[in-house]
């Protein structure tokens, strides 16, 4: 039967057949085939595709911002202040006469930076600490998890506020503060998963091959924990953007005149009744991006579910 599949794959040629074959010929083909099947699962979830679309849009906005708008996001024009949306300024202008659309477009760079930097720090730290604690157990587990508990005991925003006030306001410090406050839940998830994986036969089998602890954790435990962590991080991104916006709103994140969305809402709030667009437009941007991450996370869950 397997020979037949091989022949038919060769006959029809085609990338699709190559990807979906039951009998891959190389490591790369096996891996790509798996990714392709994951992609098929993902695309069956329409909302997830919408989420992915929003993400791509965000990236496109960040990259192409200078091409999409003629205005400088920082250039003030006090003669044009607080103009309602119009043909010249699609989303209106703010209190300094700056074009709100331009500021949102350039602000997406800040949002992306926050998202990316938090995504490569907090979950990675959480994953490593959690798997080490869960796999080794004993006093290592106790020490690492008590430290985690201490961080978990503080409300996230308050802890972030404390860090930012210690480090000084600014977007970099806000990112550091968010990263420091968001790793503990990932540690907990990774540890819980590690404990269920640790006892499984395939881990026993690799122990019986004489594998070192580091090899087992990095090569066998981490790949299984990371999928649920990726899902969780994606779903958390909305919260992280909101925390960053919250810090910006409180004046502890990005500093004026940087076009950070949260800070934009903060400055727009005094005009919210008469010039509603000043605060509403960045608010919608935050809302749409948060929604996009949530939809994307749901779709990733379908794809990365370890039982699948």
């Amino acid at each position, binding site marked *: 039967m*397997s*020979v037949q599949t*091989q022949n038919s794959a060769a006959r029809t040629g085609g990338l699709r057949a190559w990807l979906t074959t*039951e*009998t*891959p*010929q*190389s*490591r790369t*083909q*096996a891996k790509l085939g*798996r990714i392709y099947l994951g992609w098929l699962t993902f695309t069956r979830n329409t909302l997830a595709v919408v989420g992915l679309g929003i993400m791509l849009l965000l990236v496109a906005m960040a990259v192409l911002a200078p091409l999409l708008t003629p205005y400088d996001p920082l250039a003030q024009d006090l003669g044009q202040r607080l103009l309602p949306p119009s043909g010249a300024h699609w989303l209106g202008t703010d209190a300094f006469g700056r074009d709100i659309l331009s500021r949102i477009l350039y602000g997406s760079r800040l949002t992306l930076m926050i998202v990316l930097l938090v995504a490569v720090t907090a979950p990675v730290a959480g994953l490593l600490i959690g798997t080490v604690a869960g796999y080794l157990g004993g006093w290592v587990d106790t020490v690492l998890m008590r430290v985690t508990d201490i961080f978990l005991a503080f409300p996230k925003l308050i802890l972030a506020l404390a860090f930012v006030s210690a480090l000084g306001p600014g977007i970099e410090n806000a990112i550091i503060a968010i990263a420091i406050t968001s790793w503990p839940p990932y540690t907990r998830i990774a540890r819980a998963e590690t404990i269920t994986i640790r006892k*499984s*036969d*395939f881990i*026993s*089998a*690799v*122990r*019986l*091959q*004489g*594998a070192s602890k580091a*090899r087992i954790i990095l*090569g*066998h435990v981490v*790949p*299984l924990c990371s999928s649920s962590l990726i899902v969780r991080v994606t779903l958390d991104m909305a919260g992280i953007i909101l925390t960053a916006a919250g810090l910006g709103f409180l004046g502890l994140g990005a500093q004026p005149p940087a076009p950070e969305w949260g800070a934009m809402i903060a400055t727009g709030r005094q005009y919210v009744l008469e010039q509603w667009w000043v605060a509403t437009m960045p608010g919608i941007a935050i809302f749409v991006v948060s929604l996009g991450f949530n939809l994307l996370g749901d779709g990733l869950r379908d794809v990365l579910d*370890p039982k699948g």
Partner: protein
Amino acid sequence: MITVHDLRVTFGHGADAVAAVQGVTFDVKPGESFGLVGESGSGKSTVLRAVVGLNHDWTGTIAVDGKPQTPHRDKAFFKSCQMVFQDPYGSLHPRHTIDRILAEPIAIHRLGNADARIDRVLRDVGLGPQFRFRYPHQLSGGQRQRVAIARALVLEPRVLLLDEPTSALDVSVQAEILNLLKRLRAEHALTYVLVSHNLAVVAGMCDRLAVMNRGRIVEEMDAASLRRGEAREGYTQQLLRASQGYDRAAADSFKDFA
């Protein structure tokens, strides 16, 4: 090849302590196939896990290949002694290809020549090279168990410990795996310790066996007397009757052996 003397394993501490194995002694000669038979909770798998080094909390003597073993084993030990697990669905890493699963022991022991070794061992267990880059979920239960056997054989061990290797499989697949295990033993001059609750499987696979109940060995016998149904102990006789299909009268006569 394997000497176990007065092996005791206790789980838990203080008041919750459960003595899972209470003084088990047996010898397995080189090239022999030895069966450990018993019902769940008899301690047969616990003995196996202590011998292979998965269980550290034991007392007594375990010697493999003439070398006394401590609870913690070095890499060289695993090169000579490997194990096959009961559940082929749980013993293969779900995110690794067959290739990766088989390459891992080669990499750990720095054996080199991985491609040739993987091809050879796959052919040895009756799987063609077309299986090499598949994931476990693309294989049937029997094929997975073949991969698990291949993984154990890749290090070319002298001792193979088999923990109910066919009890999760369909009967027709069980026959294939049992035949494969028999052939591999002959070809590679392996020593087997087979743990099973199935008397017929043990009778066909082993030269000698020990019947265990509640952490102790009830009796030791050779396979020929098992095939003739000659058991000395009441417990073994009851086990023999129960394994011959449903019999109302027999079921009513069963009792607990402490």
